């Protein structure tokens, strides 16, 4: 096995980097890939909560880097997916506790044992961001269809190019098809026109994401949810499959209505 390292970044905070990391980890693990997630947001760790593993932390990333434990000791194995591991961030330190070369070395040590290494980058473009993208083979930029998020995403894409990690790939998160239809939200084309990078996936806005995040059960555990399905599709695309993008029309268009007549219970 030689793992590929994917770093999830965005510039702006709150667009769904951690949610995307957690859900893709679940989607890849449920497809029998061996996955380790690294939370690079030292000082503001979240990924453990979203994955529902926060009460199992003993050692963290900084302990590994500073040699207080072996990598194995800091890896938490998910009980629901035995292929899924997490290396949590330290909560009591800050970004300067780790350097970009530390991250490269850590990932190189992990590579032989995994299919995927997913790194959750902190918001911003400072040290934490550079730590997170240093070992990356692929950088995935997560954005929302909002002007402020797009500008930050554009900046990050430029920085990723400057670090010769490009071209980055794009996940558009929290797209609300009803608002797009009413012309109140940027649509996929507007986003792609500006950012001009390869689209990896579109995740529709879905209340289930909030519910599942609070419960520590990533929404991708339930492939029937809208967002969960989108994350599984992204995982397949990362794996080289050619998966068509989900039709983003809301559920009330004429074809869906006809479909529902024949399919009680809907989708």
């Amino acid at each position, binding site marked *: 096995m030689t793992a590929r390292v994917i770093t999830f970044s965005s510039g702006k905070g709150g667009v769904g980097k951690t949610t995307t990391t957690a859900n893709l980890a679940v989607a890849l693990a449920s497809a029998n890939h061996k996955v380790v997630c690294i939370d690079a947001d030292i000082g503001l760790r979240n990924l453990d909560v979203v994955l529902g593993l926060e009460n199992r932390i003993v050692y963290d990333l900084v302990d590994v880097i500073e040699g207080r434990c072996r990598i194995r000791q800091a890896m938490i194995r998910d009980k629901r997916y035995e292929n899924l591991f997490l290396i949590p961030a330290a909560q009591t330190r800050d970004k300067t506790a780790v*350097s970009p070369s530390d991250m490269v070395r850590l990932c190189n040590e992990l590579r032989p044992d995994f299919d995927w290494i997913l790194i959750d980058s902190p918001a911003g473009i400072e040290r934490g961001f550079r730590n997170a993208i240093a070992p990356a083979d692929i950088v995935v930029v997560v954005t929302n269809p909002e002007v402020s998020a797009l500008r930050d995403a554009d900046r990050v894409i430029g920085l990723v190019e400057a670090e010769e990690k490009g071209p980055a790939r794009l996940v558009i998160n929290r797209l609300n098809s009803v608002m797009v239809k009413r012309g109140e939200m940027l649509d996929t084309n507007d986003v792609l026109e500006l950012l001009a990078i390869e689209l990896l996936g579109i995740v529709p806005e879905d209340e289930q994401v909030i519910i599942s995040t609070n419960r520590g059960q990533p929404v991708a555990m339930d492939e029937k949810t809208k967002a969960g399905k989108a994350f599984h599709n992204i995982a397949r695309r990362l794996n080289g499959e050619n998966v068509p993008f989900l039709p983003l029309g809301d559920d009330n268009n004429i074809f869906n209505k006809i479909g529902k007549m024949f399919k009680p219970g809907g989708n």
Partner: protein
Amino acid sequence: MMNFNENKSIQIKGINEGLLITMGEGNWVDLEKELLAILEEKAKFFNGAKIALDVGGHVLRAADLGMLRDRFSDKGITIWAVLGSSPSTEMNAQMLGMATRLSAPAHERKIHSINTDNIPGEEAIFIHRTLRSGFKVDYDGHVVVLGDVNPGAEIYASGSVVIWGRVRGSILAGMPENHAASVCALELTPTLLRIAGVTYLPSKRKGKNQPEMARIENGQVVVESWKIKS
């Protein structure tokens, strides 16, 4: 910049973080000898200095780095950082507890000007990429971009600016007061457009975007369709 030797293979200059010593190309053994000679010669001057050593593409073993660090520290000089393009050099430096980056790495990309010796007075740079948010081009001459200028990007030029793409960022042309300068783009919807210090106040746009040219007329910036007049 202070050059301590005529031979330019080793350069020393002051930076915010202390002194930066840049090692040139060539045989490392010779370079190292030269560096140590400089050290002996200028030891008093360097005393107490913090040094970042840029070794470029040279691959150094931990033993090489350790030797240098010790020789320098004998003279009261700290090598706190080793910069280099080789990952193994970087790793070795880290193992010795040295930094491998200056605190503020430059994300600015270098832009080279085109040689225009044969056309007097007309200097231009050609940029074949999209200028993304946070990218600034500051050039004394004309600027030609094959790509878009995204929101948050900025071009500052003393001459004219031509963009074969969509402009949504900021363009300052003819700075500070070159009234002959113009700005052309396939789609001109800038955040800010200023020519020779005069700011363009965009009016309500009607119809589809089309190639446009902005220039100074009677002290105002006017924008009109970019057409070749026969």
